[in-house]
């Protein structure tokens, strides 16, 4: 063998390196792709990238195997005539055939009723384009996967602090002293969180994890606080109780920057009960929260305009205004609310000892109070007060789906937002920090359409398909108050469903409720498997027919790079590219990868040629938009406006001359402008020359307190990021929610919910956070189904589609149900036994693994490791289908019929967030004679035309040789 010291990669073949952006998950790290003789030899993190700073995760390092996966679809496919849907009997067609077929069908729908076309995408980081396409088409039936992912986290915090975790903001671990992570598994913000967490721990920061399960990040916590699923709200409210009781809140922060001191009308008889008392003064109309509110002056004992210089307002007490209106500061209402939520009350609910809850409150409160950070950064607030320094309270939080994926998640996350606020940690060093374009007004300005007239033939939708309702008039309902969207988003059933309800689309379309649709286009969404609740039934709905033989969902188009389970149910399959084969813009119009210190966006550029006939979905949309002559894709003379996606990215402006386009960097004719500026024909090249990333670092004085930072807000407005430079006061008390409640109570003039939903809306639209049992737990026999069942994605598979990946699947080829040993003992089975997990809705057979790292009331498994036989390019005997399982079969997408409706989604009643984690189960041993395979099983999915034959027994990848051999 050659001496390794004398060996160099360059001696073996022609090597080159290209920079682009990863897409093995939604984290979007900068990568360097090293090629040898044109084949990918090595993918490593780009050290010059602000997000991942050179590191890369298990998925990113396995990108090569995604490229060579035999699961790749390489040709457009059409279901064979007379072949049954779901049997994967396809014929290869040309792209021209595919486009003309689609154009003809969609043009007809657009001319008749654009609602009959529904576009739903699994990925939510292309919404700038996919949303634009839907709007241009004129259909409201569009959303990404947020509704079944973490919309509660987005909505709960954005409606409270004007920002949220993940792409919107996060914990400032560089300066925090105490970090509390709640309900976060291995995910949501993958590499940056790992980088920061490690550095935080090395600096001696204290890390507390609240989670029913101790894996991943929680493993390295200084303290693990096991909690019963769905009870985080009780914990947070009890902590808030203790903090208020001891006076550990940041009074100055509350009075100046939140609505804590603002006076709320307190007269249940009045129509404006629970709204802020608004003084009569001129306010500019806008989607911001006008400042015409009152404080109660401590010194003068009178009501006075908020932020009157020199005034110290009351936070507590009740007062009567000169006109006789009884009022209370909203903090008083919060104090009254949490009085009942003692640690002793929360203890049996959460399973956490009362003394632990109290100690957590003390740790948070005392750290926030006594370890104040002061940075010598002068800044000016919106009321023209000059500050010589930026201060912060070093208690940081991070939370994700563990809190969000419950039907009480919105109010729970509101409780978290309130706790973070009373500790004084919002956009301050050591606490929570926003990421551009956040903070945005509470709620942000874009609104959904608000009536059926918004949908017109051959006309773009009047409004954004997705938006942020601030009052009942913003709901997208008809005259009866019923839903207009196929997923019933923005209806009274789920008024603040800001990410839509993708998880109910198939059921609703199948039932024809509120109406049948014609064509369903799914992009990168595995709705026939792990992305649907009630998977088995959904698969039946996808192939269900009317008595006349017509499918209930007449035409299904699936665009995917891999032979997912859903592809089998397509009538038309469009082969997508991998991330190494295409252009992408990770745009400021969407969810960019901004840092705390300023806006960041990035691009992907192709490193390899597309495999076979694969075509990037973005190019498909541009082509379709052009063929359908959608206005944004068409010149005034009817000719095609954009050659392809890269052309669109460079030249598109949100409106003519707006200077705002997909990419924020290197704008202007010569590329010397940023955020706003004329299109730059050389923008792609400039990104490529700059590591494929644009990072604008704000001046230090604009980096903190941005909700109220005059300099920042004016800068943001000047650069097209916000419409108003008004302060974004934190909504400790949510007047928005109260408006919906007043409507439900029949007190508020204007739109009212249908009768059946009045009580539901009145209950859950509480302007102050409260705790309630998840909806499913309220209607389940908990003696029969005592256990909570959870899922999480393992880090090596998080956010990815990689059971087709030869390396990653070796780490997780199948999954087990993790149970506390006590659960096994109580139910008569042992470690490794085959067991049944049964909910009121279904059951699965699987193997169990005893674990001391899960609280005894919870069982859990790694999600989406189980696959349907034959899918994802795997052999029919693959572990994924024989030993792997999906918990989704036990989870329902709809609640049992009730007075509020026969088909309410199993979701949060405020946001429509899928309540995955509400399911209750029991477990028992499989009978002795039962087959040692997981159940249910499905008929193996055959290989598709154009899909590579099953690989042999061996695979030995060597870049530069591998492709030549095969």
């Amino acid at each position, binding site marked *: 063998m050659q001496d390794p010291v004398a060996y160099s990669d360059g001696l073996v073949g022609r090597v080159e390196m290209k920079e682009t952006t990863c897409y093995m998950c939604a984290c979007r790290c900068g990568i360097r792709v090293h090629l040898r003789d044109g084949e990918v030899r090595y993918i490593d993190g780009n050290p010059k990238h602000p997000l991942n700073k050179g590191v890369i995760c298990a998925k990113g390092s396995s990108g090569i195997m995604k490229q060579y996966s035999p699961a790749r679809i390489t040709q457009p496919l059409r279901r064979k005539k007379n072949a049954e849907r779901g049997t994967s009997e396809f014929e290869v067609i040309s792209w021209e055939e595919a486009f003309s077929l689609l154009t003809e069908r969609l043009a007809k729908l657009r001319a008749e009723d654009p609602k009959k076309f529904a576009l739903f995408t699994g990925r939510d980081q292309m919404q700038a384009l996919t949303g634009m396409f839907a709007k241009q088409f004129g259909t409201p039936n569009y959303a990404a996967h947020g509704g079944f992912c973490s919309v509660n986290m987005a909505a709960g915090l954005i409606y409270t602090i004007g920002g949220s975790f993940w792409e919107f903001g996060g914990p400032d671990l560089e300066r925090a002293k105490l970090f509390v992570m709640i309900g976060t598994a291995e995910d949501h913000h993958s590499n940056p969180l790992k980088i920061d967490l490690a550095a935080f721990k090395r600096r001696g920061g204290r890390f507390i994890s609240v989670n029913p399960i101790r894996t991943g990040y929680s493993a390295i916590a200084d303290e693990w606080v096991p909690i019963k699923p769905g009870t985080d709200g009780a914990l947070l409210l009890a902590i808030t109780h203790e903090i208020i009781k001891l006076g550990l809140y940041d009074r100055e922060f509350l009075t100046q920057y939140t609505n804590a001191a603002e006076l709320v009308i307190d007269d249940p008889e009045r129509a404006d009960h629970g709204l802020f008392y608004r003084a009569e003064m001129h306010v500019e109309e806008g989607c911001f929260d006008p400042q015409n509110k009152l404080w109660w002056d401590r010194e003068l004992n009178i009501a006075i305009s908020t932020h009157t210089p020199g005034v110290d307002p009351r936070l507590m007490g009740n007062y009567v205004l000169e006109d006789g209106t009884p009022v209370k500061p909203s903090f008083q209402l919060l104090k009254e609310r949490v009085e009942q939520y003692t640690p002793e009350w929360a203890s049996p609910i959460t399973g956490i000892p009362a003394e632990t809850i109290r100690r957590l409150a003390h740790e948070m409160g005392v750290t926030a109070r006594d370890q104040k950070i002061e940075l010598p950064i002068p800044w000016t607030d919106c009321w023209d007060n000059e500050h010589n320094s930026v201060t912060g309270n070093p208690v940081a939080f991070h939370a994700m789906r563990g809190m969000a994926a419950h039907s009480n998640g919105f109010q729970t996350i509101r409780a978290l937002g309130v706790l973070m606020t009373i500790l004084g940690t919002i956009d301050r060093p050591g606490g929570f920090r926003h990421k551009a374009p956040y903070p945005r007004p509470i709620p942000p300005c874009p609104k959904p359409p608000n009536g059926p007239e918004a949908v017109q033939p051959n006309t773009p939708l009047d409004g954004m398909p997705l938006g942020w309702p601030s009052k009942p008039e913003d709901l997208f309902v008809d005259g009866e108050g019923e839903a207009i969207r196929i997923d019933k988003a923005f209806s009274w059933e789920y008024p603040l469903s800001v990410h839509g309800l993708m998880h109910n689309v198939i059921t609703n379309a199948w039932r024809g409720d509120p109406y049948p649709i014609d064509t369903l286009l799914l992009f990168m969404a595995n709705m026939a498997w792990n992305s649907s609740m009630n998977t088995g039934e959904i698969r039946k709905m996808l192939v269900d027919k009317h008595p006349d033989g017509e499918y209930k969902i007449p035409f299904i188009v699936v665009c995917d790079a891999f032979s997912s389970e859903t592809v089998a149910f397509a009538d038309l399959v469009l082969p997508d590219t991998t991330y190494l084969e295409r252009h992408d813009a990770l745009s400021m119009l969407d969810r960019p990868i901004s840092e705390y210190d300023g806006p960041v966006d990035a691009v992907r550029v192709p490193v390899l040629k597309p495999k076979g006939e694969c075509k990037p979905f973005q190019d498909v949309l541009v082509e379709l938009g052009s063929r359908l002559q959608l206005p944004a894709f068409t010149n005034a003379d009817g000719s095609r406006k954009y050659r392809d996606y890269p052309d669109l990215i460079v030249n598109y402006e949100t409106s003519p001359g707006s200077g705002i386009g997909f990419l924020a960097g290197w704008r202007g004719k010569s590329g010397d402008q940023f955020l706003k500026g004329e299109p730059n024909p050389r923008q792609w090249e400039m990104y490529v020359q700059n590591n494929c990333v644009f990072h604008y670092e704000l001046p230090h004085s604009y980096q903190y307190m941005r909700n109220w930072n005059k300099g920042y807000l004016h800068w943001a407005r000047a650069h097209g990021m916000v419409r108003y430079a008004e302060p974004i006061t934190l909504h400790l008390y949510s007047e928005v929610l109260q408006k919906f409640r007043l409507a439900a109570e029949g007190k508020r003039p204007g739109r009212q919910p249908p009768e059946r939903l009045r009580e539901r809306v009145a209950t859950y639209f509480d302007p102050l956070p409260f705790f309630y049992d998840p909806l499913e737990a309220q209607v389940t026999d908990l003696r029969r189904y005592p256990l909570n069942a959870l899922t999480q994605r393992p880090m090596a598979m998080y956010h990815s589609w990689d059971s087709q990946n030869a390396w990653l699947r*070796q780490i997780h*080829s199948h999954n087990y149900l993790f149970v506390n040993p006590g659960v096994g003992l109580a139910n008569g089975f042992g470690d490794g036994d085959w067991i049944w997990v049964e909910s009121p809705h279904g059951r699965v057979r699987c193997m169990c*693994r005893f674990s*001391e790292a899960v609280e005894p009331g919870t069982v859990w498994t790694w999600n989406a490791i189980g696959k349907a036989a034959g899918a994802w390019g795997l052999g029919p005997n693959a572990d994924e289908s024989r030993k792997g399982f999906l918990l989704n079969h036990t989870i329902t997408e709809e609640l049992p019929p009730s007075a509020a409706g026969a088909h309410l989604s199993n979701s949060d009643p405020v946001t429509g967030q899928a309540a995955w984690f509400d399911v209750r189960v029991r477990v028992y041993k499989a009978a002795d004679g039962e087959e040692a395979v997981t159940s249910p099983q499905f008929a193996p999915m055959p290989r598709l035309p154009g899909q590579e034959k099953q690989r042999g027994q061996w695979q030995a990848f060597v870049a530069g040789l591998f492709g030549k051999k095969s």
Partner: protein
Amino acid sequence: MHPTFSVIFLTTLIGAGQGLFLAMVTGQLYAIARFLPAQTDQFYAIGSLVALVLLVTGLLASFFHLGHPERAWRAATKWRTSWLSREVIVLPIVMFLVFAYGAAHWLGLTMPLFRVGESLQVDATLLLGLFGTIASFALFVCTAMIYGGVRFIQEWHTPLTVTNFLFLGAASGFMLAAAYSAYISNPLVTFFGTWAVILTLTGLASRSAHLVRNAQMKYKSTVQTAIGVRHTVIAQKAQGATGGSFNTREFFHGQKQTTIETVRLLFMVLVFPIPILLIGAAYITSSPTLPILAFVIQYVGLMAERWSFFAEAKHPQNLYYQSVA
């Protein structure tokens, strides 16, 4: 450890081959000392041939254990440190000496070369037999030390591994010599049979001592030292691969505990009491078939013994491969 049949065949076949050769030489020495009637050269030659066949078959079996048998010659290079290398050197020497010993008998090279003392006429066969005996003992040591020298496998790391290999190999060889004698109706059945019984009983003592020792084994490594965490309760959940790895295939037998116990019981019966009883019965009945049966049964028993030898050995690396999830 995972018992592989190539190694089971290798060790049992060459053990029997060496034992048979030792039996031939022993027989010749006794004949020289006139304790036994002299045998024909053909007797020794054929006996040696059988021994050689066993050694060659064992060697061939061993090739199945190698990933690259064509490079096996390289294995002779590290004899200073590797018992495996030493075995690779000694085995051909033994084979050569066994061949030469047989050939010398076949060719009748029995003219005395020199004389020791008054009565001992030293001829080529005796010299080769002597060297062959030394080499055979060396080979027993080398083979056994391949296992006994692995200090991490505590079940093996004991002189008893050497004595087991030696006595059990020799016993099976003498048993084969008895069977050979019975087959050709040679009067040496009793002689070889008696030695076989003595060696089998010695082997029983050695192997029993080994079993008793291993039953009381205190392992040096624990999961605590394996990962360096001090706690009484540590359990592995995941080993980083769910579809198995070299580490799960090479170091685990994958059998139920009941199978292990059954095999242990089986070899304790097949190797020791049954052949002894059969030889005893052969004394009484002068049956020509019973010694053959005794050898066959003992050999089968020895394969079970060797299987058990592997299966009962616990490698410390297994501490890292306890659970999949």
